[in-house]
């Protein structure tokens, strides 16, 4: 009798405990170590801040959110294993995407197969969105192949026709993301790695379309490359007036900038695919002057989103981030914050954590009824790419990352400094 009572009491206590600790579990596998660790660590901050703020405001649908983060060491196989673990062992209700196209591409298959909404904070390669996946949603303005359109716009709209760069050196990391931007700039064909089919022909390429001749192009391996000065010397010897360095990480951006400074390269214009991070300025100092990089977010852009059903502006995000981490955020924290906002809104919109319902709700967003984040409004096309969102072009001036383009979208656009006065 006593034993039966004990069992009943134990079961009741367990049920009570379960009921009182109901929570929504969200998994995120991030590159906290390895070559993407800078961006990965900042993504962790963005996700954590967002979940903290949601929980402080009562959670989602009355339930607290539990965030499970694992370090995938910048390794695709580990990222796959960790997402499978989230799904099969932790049985998470939803996931947040990881950083970089290299990791996001294989992960997309796992999440699609298991029916999960896959919100990507990074992973701009077009090939990710042409696999026929139904539940991918990219939280940046466009696929990486189209970043070159913004560079073209900057040159055509902001530089006098008689003083534009006429030649370009395009160097790139042999990386998913960098290769994608390169394809758009150089006008090569984007093919599906699975069956070799044509995804998109980017010809003639944004640079040629701008009237710029490519005088040098080169790739470096994605890991273990140390010969930066030799590469910078080759760029300098090409005499290119525009240097395009498609780096995969802030670390590479620092290395190529210091090498160009060492060889005393003197281009008119420099554009990098990475370089919004404070670590870039710390590592390069004055050599960063006039360097341009595209970005999806800037602290001074007056975006306004929603969090826990209340208005939440970009400035609110900056203030909250500074309060929690005692430093300024950059886009690597802002974008995942927006991903978190999107997932929160999709759960609220669906009324549950049914990923099918969440995906349907996200797909139903329009320009007039979008997901509202600190990166602005999001609605997606059938591939999962955002509709009608321009990239911002930012430029380092006087140690500050200012946004310079587009000039007609927001107030507070800074003047572009041009030409660059050496490194």
């Amino acid at each position, binding site marked *: 009798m006593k034993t039966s009572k004990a069992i009943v009491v134990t079961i009741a206590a367990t049920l009570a405990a379960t009921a009182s600790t109901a929570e929504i579990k969200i998994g995120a596998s991030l590159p*906290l*170590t*390895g*070559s993407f*660790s*800078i961006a*990965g*660590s900042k993504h962790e901050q963005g996700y954590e801040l967002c979940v903290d703020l949601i929980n402080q405001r009562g959670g989602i649908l009355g339930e607290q959110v539990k965030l499970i983060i694992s370090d995938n*060491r*910048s390794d695709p196989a580990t990222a796959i294993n960790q997402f499978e673990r989230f799904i099969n062992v932790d049985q998470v209700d939803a996931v947040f995407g990881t950083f970089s196209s290299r990791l996001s591409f294989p992960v997309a298959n796992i999440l699609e197969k298991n029916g999960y909404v896959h919100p990507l904070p990074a992973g701009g390669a077009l090939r990710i969105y042409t696999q026929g996946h139904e539940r991918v949603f990219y939280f940046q303005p466009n696929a990486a192949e189209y970043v070159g359109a913004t560079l073209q716009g900057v040159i055509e709209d902001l530089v006098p026709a008689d003083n534009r760069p006429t030649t370009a050196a395009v*160097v790139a990391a*042999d990386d998913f993301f960098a290769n994608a931007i390169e394809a758009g700039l150089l006008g090569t064909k984007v093919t599906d790695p699975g069956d070799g089919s044509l995804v998109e022909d980017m010809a003639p390429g944004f640079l040629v379309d701008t009237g710029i001749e490519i005088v040098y192009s*080169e*790739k*470096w*391996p994605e*890991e*273990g*490359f*140390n*010969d930066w*000065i*030799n*590469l910078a*010397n*080759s760029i300098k010897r090409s005499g290119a007036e525009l240097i395009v360095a498609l780096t995969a*990480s*802030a*670390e590479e951006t*620092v*290395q190529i900038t*210091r090498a160009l*400074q*060492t*060889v*005393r390269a003197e281009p008119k214009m420099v554009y990098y695919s990475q370089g919004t991070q404070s*670590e870039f300025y710390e*590592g390069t*100092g004055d*050599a960063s002057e006039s360097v341009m990089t595209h970005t999806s977010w800037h602290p001074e852009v007056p975006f306004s989103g929603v969090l826990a059903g209340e208005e939440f502006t970009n400035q609110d995000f900056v203030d909250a981030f500074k309060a929690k981490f005692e430093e300024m955020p950059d886009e690597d924290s802002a974008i995942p914050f927006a991903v978190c906002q999107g997932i929160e809104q999709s759960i609220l919109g669906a009324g549950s954590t049914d990923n099918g319902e969440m995906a349907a709700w996200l797909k139903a967003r329009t320009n007039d009824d979008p997901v509202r984040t600190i990166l602005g409004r999001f609605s997606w096309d059938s591939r999962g790419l955002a509709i009608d969102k321009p990239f911002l072009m930012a430029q380092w001036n006087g140690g500050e990352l200012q946004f310079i383009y587009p000039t007609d979208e927001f107030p507070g656009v800074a003047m572009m400094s041009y030409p660059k006065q050496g*490194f």
Partner: protein
Amino acid sequence: MIIDIIQILALGISLGGVYALMGSGLSLVFGVMRIVNLAHPAMIMGGAYVAYWAFRLAGADPIAMLPVAVLILAATGLVLYKLVFEREAQSARYSEMTVLLTFALAMVVEGLLGAMFTNTQRITSPEYATDAYFVGDVFVPKGQLFAAVTSVAIISALALFLKYSRFGNAIRATTQNREAAQLLGVNVNHVCLVSFAIGVGLAGAAGALVSFVFSFFPSKHWEWIVILMSLVVLGGMGSVLGTVLAAFILATASVFVGFYFGATWSTLTFFVALFVVLLVRPQGIFGEKPELA
């Protein structure tokens, strides 16, 4: 054409000087103790962080901070040897055991550095780090040059110490024949202890130099181990002189390949060298051919 060759040699030799110091500690430890110290690049990272924080907090020049990095890392080496390696010295499978031990040690060091300093990339920026000497069309990067000169000075001092000091003779004797050295009264355990500390101290010195040549973060050491192993294998396992020579050869070869065939292939130089040497001359340039049992 001649200008190009001179430029390649200038870049290759200056880069090789940096690699030489990075690899020499690894080679010394293997020569004396038969430990393939996979944690050596992680120790280099430790030295780089010493230089970084001294530079960031006090504006200290990384080269001036080199002795401090050496002392801190050498002391770490002493403790590690006592805690980790000494007790395994009598094991019949010592060499195999130490591969696993140093692999684990590398992961522990990486984790500790990450916990202490975060995983963000760091680099020191003394003025010479991004400057160069120009002679006509040829240039030599000051950062790499200063690092190479410092590296050669340290390795020369090490060579003199090994050749002319009593303790250096004991180290060399242990390297050549551990049992014979022991029979002649050399305290082999003490030699191993000091050699390991010197090896790790050299990693600290290399780290101080690396801090302004390459950016670094805790897990960066995995990228360096292949380069360092290829130097040690080409030079001859355990030969410090061979490692130094291999560093200059392979660095120049990689610059040559990068210059004429593109950056994509320059890193491959080290991998190819590793495979070719193991296939053609496994004992390397200065190593001894292993005796058949």
